[in-house]
């Protein structure tokens, strides 16, 4: 299963750049990211090439973070492909808390990161529908 890093970010100037600078200085590559924000705070969700390094350098700087299991799905770069994946989940009775997408540098594929309400059920349903799920090891090669 794919591991995502979620970081609690304060809503203030320079909060994000401090995180990206810290990761850059420690040679952590970002593959995908998304931000959810409210009036008070933001949640920065990251898929990186090296979770352990990213987590430890951010924790050292006092950030609160969590490593969450998410589903990474390879989606053909054609209209309607994402809909197919989502309908598979809907039919399996799995809700989506959030999702975000990214493109690979080399292949003609899009990838979607999904945080479903039930990881195991989502995984099962997508694999049964012949979707290719990716892991952190795959991410390093993308």
């Amino acid at each position: 299963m794919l591991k995502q890093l979620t970081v609690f970010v304060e809503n203030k100037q320079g909060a994000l750049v401090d995180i990206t600078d810290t990761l850059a200085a420690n040679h952590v590559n970002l593959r995908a990211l998304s931000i959810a924000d409210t009036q008070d705070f933001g949640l920065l969700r990251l898929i990186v090439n090296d979770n352990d390094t990213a987590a430890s350098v951010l924790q050292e700087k006092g950030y609160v973070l969590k490593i969450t299991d998410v589903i990474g799905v390879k989606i053909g770069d054609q209209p309607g492909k994402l809909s197919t994946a989502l309908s598979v989940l809907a039919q399996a009775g799995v809700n989506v808390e959030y999702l975000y997408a990214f493109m690979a540098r080399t292949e003609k594929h899009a990838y979607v990161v999904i945080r479903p309400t039930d990881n195991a059920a989502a995984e099962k349903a997508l694999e049964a529908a012949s979707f290719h799920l990716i892991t952190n090891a795959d991410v390093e090669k993308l």
Partner: protein
Amino acid sequence: MEQRYYQKEIETMPVEEIKKLQSEKLVKQVRHVYDNVPYYRNLMEEKGVTPEDIHGIEDLYKLPFLTKADLRDAYPYGLLAKPLSECVRIQSTSGTTGRRVVAFYTQHDVDLWEDCCARAIVAAGGTNEDVCQVAYGYGLFTGGPGLNGGSHKVGCLTLPMSSGNTERQIQFMTDLSATILCCTPSYAAYIGETLKEQGYTPDQIPLKAGIFGAEPWTEEMRRGIEKTLGIKAYDIYGLTETSGPGVSFECCEQTGMHINEDHFLAEIIDPDTGEVLPEGSKGELVFTSLDKEAFPLLRYRTRDICVLSRKKCSCGRTLIKMAKPMGRSDDMMIIRGVNVFPSQIETVLLKEGYEPNYQIVVDRVGNTDTFDVNVEMTAEMFSDTVSGITEQEKALANAMKVMLGINPKVHLVAPKSIVRSEGKAVRVIDKRKLHD
């Protein structure tokens, strides 16, 4: 269990007799102070009151207050009422809130103080069969010397450990079967955790009771310590200005601390007006020493906010009880007409599993107070969804509403984002312009 007392006659004296005794002692104490302490005589003269105006405790309100600022002004000898040749001891405060306070004791004063501590130990079930481990600091701090003296008076085998060196504390506790532990509640909790880590279960720990004070602690903390150590935990209250620990102490009922009224006369006043409030009202606690020789303070304002109660106690003691102080009058806020103490917020946070890192922001928009509480997120409580965090904020706000009676807006903020000045966090920001 048979209820025992250290000084039964005083501790179970009918209320009318205690009041009569207090009145007699007060008249003498006021005369002693007036004759020997020019600083306080001046305050009395400014108020136009003389010892002849004081016939008993009903006249107490006529006397001027003493505050911490007076103690600073009069440092070191300005409030001393006996020649130094008759004094045998000093004790001192840590001085964290300004210039330190130095209190003086004659042998009579030391005895009186140790008697108070002995009453506390007996109320916690202590007898001469007990082994009493005193892990309060010894030295200028009153905790160690006070309980040490009380333990001697009861006849316990006293282990004068002082604080720190937890390994050694545990070794003496287990090797010599200590039955009573006296220390700060936070140190008791720490010793308990260490014992647990070393594999001790509560029934393997010889302790049966603990006497914990010198810092604020919550009821949750009490239950935690009692469970880990397998003991009953008793609260004790006191301040260097009046003598030290033992001004009041808890009995088996654990519903407030009996004040040693034969030595310390308590009042509750309105912190803003200085007006004496009727029994049962919440206000600032004021103490008048009744028979101290060297450092007798009259109407000393403790800044502690609490409530007194004469409700009959099942332990048989007739001494008035004070509730655990709810906060300090210096940091009490009135928000939307309700008294709010930072300590109440702290209690909620600890209960809900957060660290007590918070900041209260009060403002006034139009004619309504806004009440925001910023709480630092912790790694343990962190949820990775917006809805999760919003739910947490709501749950905290609800818990605070139950405690305070008014609804705050809670914001979870990044760790260490709450401004700390000189190591101490700024707990309250009041932006209201309530005074011109």
